[in-house]
C-alpha cells in the first residue's frame, strides 16, 4: 500500500484539540505524521487539501444495512459505499436483520461481508435478546468474541425493565454499551407521527413525546441502579434532553445520540402525508428541534448518528399509516449538519467533527476518531463551503427514501480514506 500525503488542509482533530493548516502522512494503515511541510515520500500519492478540512473519518453509531435478509433494500457493500461517499469511515450495523444478529454466525457474516466490500469499516451491534423478542438475553460473550461492539434490540424497545436491568449488568463484563430505542409501546401503539396539532389536523394517530421520555427516565434509573452504560438512541424530545442533562449532572454512564432529521425538520414535514417524513421516533415540534440543537451544542447529547434506514421506493409509495418508518442518512448527514448546525453558528466545525467522529469513537470504544500518530489511517477530506442540491438518484445507497430531495445544502466529503487506502474520491 502506497503512502498518502494529504497536503495543506485545515486539519481538525478534536481528540487533540488541534485546528491548524498541516499535512497528514498516512503509511502502513496508520497515521505516520501530522505537521507542516512534511516531505513527500518517493512513492506517495498526494492529495491536495488546500481550502479543505481534513478530519478523522466520521463514525455512525446507528446504521441499518439490511443484510442479511433484505438485500433488495441495501447490502453491506452498498451501505459501506454510501458511508464513505458521505464521509463515514466506520458504521455500526444494527441487528434487526433476518436472521437477527443475535449469534456469532451472523456477526461473523457481517464482518466478512464488510471485509469483502472494503469500504467503510462495519462494526456489528448484537441483539440484547434472542430474536429481539425481549425475553431471553443473547450470548453477549459470544457476540463480542465475534466482533460485536455493542448490543441493542434496535427498533424493538426493551419493554421489560428486568431484561434491561440484566442486560446493563451483564454488559459490564464486556465493557460494551447497551443501546436502547426508547419507546413505551403501549403509549405509542398504532402511532404514525408525533402527537400534536399536525397529527390532529391530518387525522393520524400520534405518538406522544412521553412515550420516549418514560423509557429515557427508566433507562437512566437503571443505569444508576446497575452502573452499566446505557446509550440512548435517536433522542427527539425536549423532555428527553432535560432528563439526560440531569443524568449527566449525576455522572451516570448515560450517552445519547441525535439524528440530522430531528435537528433539521419538524412534524410539519408530514403535511400532505409525505411518507418520507415518517420515522420513529417521529419528527417533533420546533421546541424539540431547538432543544436537540442546544443539547448537541452543550454536549448533553454526545453524538450525531444517522439511523440510516433504507426502504424500497414502493414501500413508501402508499398510505401514510401503512408506510414503513425511516429514511436513509449516510449521504446527507454531513451536509445537513454543516448547513443546519455550523451554518447557523450553533457549532464550530471542530465541535461538529467531535460529534460525528471523536465522540462516537469514545462512546462505543472504537478505533478512530483521532488523527494522533499511530492511530488508524481513517480520514475524510471535506469541502466545507461547496453549495449543492441533494439528488437522491445520485446516491450510492440502494434506496432513495429521503425527505431532503432537492434541498440546497453546504459542504460534503471529497475524499474518504479507510485503513490508509482511498475508499472514496468524488469525481
Amino acid at each position, binding site marked *: 500500500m502506497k503512502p498518502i500525503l494529504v497536503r495543506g488542509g485545515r486539519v481538525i482533530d478534536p481528540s487533540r484539540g488541534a485546528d491548524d493548516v498541516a499535512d497528514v502522512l498516512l503509511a502502513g494503515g496508520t497515521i505516520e505524521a501530522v505537521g507542516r511541510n512534511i516531505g513527500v515520500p518517493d512513492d506517495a500519492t498526494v492529495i491536495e487539501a488546500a481550502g479543505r478540512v481534513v478530519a478523522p473519518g466520521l463514525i455512525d453509531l446507528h446504521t441499518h444495512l439490511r443484510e442479511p435478509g433484505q438485500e433488495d433494500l441495501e447490502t453491506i457493500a452498498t451501505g459501506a459505499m454510501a458511508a464513505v461517499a458521505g464521509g463515514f469511515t466506520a458504521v455500526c450495523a444494527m441487528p434487526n436483520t433476518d436472521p437477527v444478529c443475535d449469534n456469532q454466525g451472523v456477526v461473523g457474516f457481517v464482518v466478512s461481508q464488510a471485509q469483502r466490500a472494503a469500504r467503510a469499516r462495519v462494526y456489528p451491534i448484537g441483539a440484547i435478546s434472542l430474536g429481539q423478542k425481549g425475553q431471553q438475553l443473547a450470548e453477549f460473550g459470544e457476540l463480542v468474541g465475534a466482533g460485536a461492539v455493542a448490543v441493542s434490540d434496535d427498533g424493538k424497545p426493551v419493554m421489560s425493565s428486568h431484561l434491561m436491568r440484566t442486560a446493563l449488568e451483564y454488559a459490564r463484563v464486556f465493557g460494551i454499551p447497551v443501546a436502547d430505542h426508547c419507546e413505551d409501546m403501549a403509549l405509542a401503539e398504532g402511532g404514525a407521527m408525533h402527537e400534536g*396539532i399536525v397529527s390532529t*389536523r391530518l387525522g393520524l394517530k400520534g405518538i406522544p413525546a412521553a412515550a420516549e421520555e418514560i423509557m429515557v427516565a427508566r433507562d437512566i434509573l437503571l443505569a444508576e441502579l446497575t452502573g452499566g452504560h446505557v446509550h440512548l438512541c435517536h433522542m427527539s424530545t425536549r423532555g428527553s434532553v432535560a432528563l439526560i442533562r440531569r443524568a449527566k449532572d449525576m455522572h451516570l454512564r448515560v450517552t445519547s445520540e441525535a439524528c440530522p432529521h430531528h435537528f433539521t425538520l419538524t412534524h410539519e414535514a408530514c403535511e400532505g402525508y409525505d411518507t418520507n417524513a415518517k420515522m420513529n421516533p417521529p419528527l417533533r415540534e420546533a421546541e424539540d428541534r431547538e432543544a436537540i440543537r442546544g443539547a448537541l451544542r452543550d454536549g448533553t447529547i454526545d453524538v450525531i448518528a444517522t439511523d440510516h434506514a433504507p426502504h424500497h421506493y414502493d414501500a413508501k409509495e402508499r*398510505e401514510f399509516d401503512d408506510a414503513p418508518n425511516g429514511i436513509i442518512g449516510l449521504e446527507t448527514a454531513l451536509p445537513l449538519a454543516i448547513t443546519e448546525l455550523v451554518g447557523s453558528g450553533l457549532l464550530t466545525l471542530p465541535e461538529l467533527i467531535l460529534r460525528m467522529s471523536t465522540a462516537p469513537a469514545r462512546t462505543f470504544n472504537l478505533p478512530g476518531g483521532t488523527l494522533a500518530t499511530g492511530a488508524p489511517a481513517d480520514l475524510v477530506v471535506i469541502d466545507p463551503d461547496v453549495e449543492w442540491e441533494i439528488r437522491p438518484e445520485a446516491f450510492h445507497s440502494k434506496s432513495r427514501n429521503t425527505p431532503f430531495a432537492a434541498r440546497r445544502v453546504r459542504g460534503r466529503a471529497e475524499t474518504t480514506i479507510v485503513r490508509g487506502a482511498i475508499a472514496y474520491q468524488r469525481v
Partner: protein
Amino acid sequence: MAALGKDLVGLEHLSADQIRLILDTAEPFKEVSERPIKKVPALRGKTIVNLFFEASTRTRISFEFAEKRLSADTVNVAASGSSVSKGETLVDTAKNLEAMRIDMVVIRHGSSGAAQFLGHRIASNVINAGDGKHEHPTQGLLDILTLRDRFGRIAGLKVAICGDVLHSRVARSNIWGLTKLGAEVAVCGPPTLLPRGIASLGVTILPRIEDAIAWADALNVLRLQLERMQTGFIPSLREYNRVFGVTRERLARAPKDLLILHPGPMNRGVEIDSDVADGEHSVILPQVTNGVAVRMAVLYLLAGGRAAPAQAARGDEA
C-alpha cells in the same frame, strides 16, 4: 377548470366561497329527488367508480343515487372480494382503474390521507367519501346545508360537536366548514376522545355535555364506536350515556330549543337517546335527504358541467 379544482379531499383547503358554491349548487338539485322521474342528464356518459375499502351503507348509497340521478355510469368496488383482498396496493388499484378510462373515483378508505394519495396519482377527479380520521367532506357539507336550511344562515351560529372527536373525520370536516363560514364551534366529549391541540383548529372545548347544551344552537352528536370501550377510552357505554349522553332530560333544561344532528349510524341509548333522535328537533333524516343533493352538487361541479346548476337540474342540455 371547475371552481373546486380536480379533487374534493376535504374542507380544510376550500375557501368560504367554494363551500358556498357547493351549498348553492345543491339547492336546485334537491328538487330533482322529489320528482317522479329522478334523473337529469348532467353527467351522461361519465364513468364513476365508487371505491369503498370500508363498509358503508348510507354514504355509498347516497353517492350512487347522486351519480345515477345525474345520469352517470357507476361501478361499485368493495374491498373484499376484489384484488385488494389479494394484496394489491392502493396505487396499483388506482392505476388499473385509470387504465379503464374512468372519469371520477369516490373513495372511502380506513387510512387518513388515502384520498389525497389517490388524487395525486391519477388524472380522474377524486372525491373523498371518508378517509380514516381525517375528513368526510360531503358529510360536513350536508350537515352545514341542513343547518342553513333551518337557521337561514351559518355565520354566528353556535354549533357543538359532541362525542368521539378523536376518531371522527366528520368532526374535522364540520369544524373546517363551519368556522370558514363564520359559525362558532365547540367540541364536547371525554378528554380521552378529544385530540391533542384541537383548539388550534379554532374551536372551544366544553368539558361537560350540560355546558354544550346550554351554549349551543345546534348539537352534532357523533357516533361512539362500540370498540372504544375495549380499547380503554371510556369505562362503559352505560357510563358514557350517563355522563355524555344527549337525553331529553338534559335538553329540557336548555334555555332554547336545540337542533339535533347525527351523521349516523346511531347507537340509540348511548350517545343519543331515542326520544331525542326521533323528537321534533331532530334533523337526522333531512340530513340524509340533503346528502344526495350535496353529492350531486359536488359531482356536478368537479365534472365541470357548463350548464348553470338550475338549468342542469331542469334537465336542459349543456
